[in-house]
């Protein structure tokens, strides 16, 4: 195995022991991200109270990178205010899409950085983040009502 492997210990830990993974039936809102090219599908559910993400969970099928990314995301995002969560999601998508940006928006996400060198796998990483972004987009107009 080369030392440039994307299969860092942090990612493997999240793959083997995913955080916040399971049924979403009790969650307040659920959105899905899918990649028709490989049939992968991640659903992200959120529970929101008083403008904060009390719980973020996911379920679905995908490669190790896809599942690890979803697991890491739920850890970083739980407990944040909606505006903070949106900032983190935007910051992550910007950092992940731009190899020149050195610092991820949250230090616990740094291990995903190596995957920026593999364009074919970027979608794997972003699937859960896109589903979360849809949740947030949905919830903000509701808040204004």
């Amino acid at each position: 195995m080369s030392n440039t492997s994307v299969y860092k210990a942090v990612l493997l830990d999240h793959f083997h022991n995913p955080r916040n993974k399971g049924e979403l039936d009790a969650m307040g809102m659920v959105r899905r991200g899918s990649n028709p090219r490989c049939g992968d599908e991640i659903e992200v559910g959120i529970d929101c109270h008083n403008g904060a993400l009390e719980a973020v969970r996911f379920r679905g099928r995908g490669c190790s990178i896809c599942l690890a990314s979803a697991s890491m995301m739920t850890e970083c995002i739980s407990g944040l205010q909606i505006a903070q969560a949106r900032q983190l999601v935007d910051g992550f998508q910007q950092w992940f899409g731009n190899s020149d940006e050195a610092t991820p928006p949250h230090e616990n996400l740094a291990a995903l950085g190596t995957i920026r060198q593999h364009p074919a796998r970027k979608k794997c990483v972003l699937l859960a983040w896109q589903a979360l972004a849809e949740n947030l987009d949905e919830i903000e107009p509701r808040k204004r009502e």
Partner: protein
Amino acid sequence: MEPVPANSPLSQDTVDFEALRADFPIFAAGSQPLHYLDSAASAQKPAVVIESIRQCYSRAYGPVHRGLYPLAENASEDYEGARQTIAKFINAGRAQQIVFTRSATESINLVAQGWAEPRLQPGDEIWVSRMEHHSNFLPWQRVCEKRGARLRMIPLDGSGRLDLAKAEGLFGKKSRLIAITQVSNVLGTINPIRDIVASARQQHIPVLVDAAQSVGHMPVDVQDLDCDFLVASAHKMCGPTGIGFLYGKSDRLAETEPLLLGGGMVDEVDIDGSSWADIPARFEAGSPNLAGAVGLACAADYLHGIGLQAIEQRVGELARLAYERLSKVSGIRLYGPEPGPQRSGIIAFNIDDIHPHDVAHIAAEHGVAIRAGHHCCQPLMQHLGVSSTARASFNLYNNEQDIAALEQAILDTRRILGQG
């Protein structure tokens, strides 16, 4: 020729395939060994093919069928010479039965829209099989939808072979065309095309053969197969990208309407109406792909020089050895028939619940190039009950080290991600 070591698990070849590997510059290009096991997606190119294209552009380039000066005349000769080479390569009776297209895909679309669509009636049936590549599925799905015809599918048995006994109506009165692959790009199954054509012939049902995975990999003789149409792509047979061909029986080609209209495909153009040029020019509107045709013909000559039977045997042996080795890996699931005369050098597999993307990615870190995905065969994936698989495919330049590297990559994948 160096003798094959007595302990080699591969049978003695009459051709020195190890030496032929040096014909392919890509294997000397990188700093790391390349174990290229994705030839079913696209094959590597021998130096002679690359050189033939360079020579075409640097010494013999001119417009085809459009000039009266020596360069243009030579270009036309080279282009038509390439047609003759391909005709001979698949034993077509006449060079005019070969139409150059961009790809096997374009060839199928030409038959679907140019031949099938104008004659399909509501209630008619077109038959494909469950193992077809999307390019031999979607064009038929569209013409059937347009014409109110029915697209039917030959099912597969548990081993990944056609289950012809369950294809009720395949040779029936409503059947208007059978479009079938000669070799599955996932299962490696070699289909009994001759038998299918023989049965279809009795009911006057035309047969189109998708030969993208067979031409250049095994002897293909269109007169022996007796098929009405046959399609292939150059890049899968060690030729350049961007060119393929359609073979058709003369009467079938005469029944086919051109899809692309423009320069070079007309006889007379008048404001009140126009008439088409002779076949095959009628199907080749626009300036022809001269360098592509030259490269394709060179690839055919190269493969013919080695011998298609020898290539088929060599690749079959590699696949058999790989199948044997991989089948011993705990947690592996191999798709398609057991190795044998009905199987080509393509092996699709999954390991435990590990995602094929992970298998291919870790393999890549070992210098092993394999494919992961649905291989443009979603109906087949549904049959197999999976969304994707990993796939290793062999060609004449592969060897035992490639198999060993693949095996090591799979074991490592299990160690990293699985229960291994």
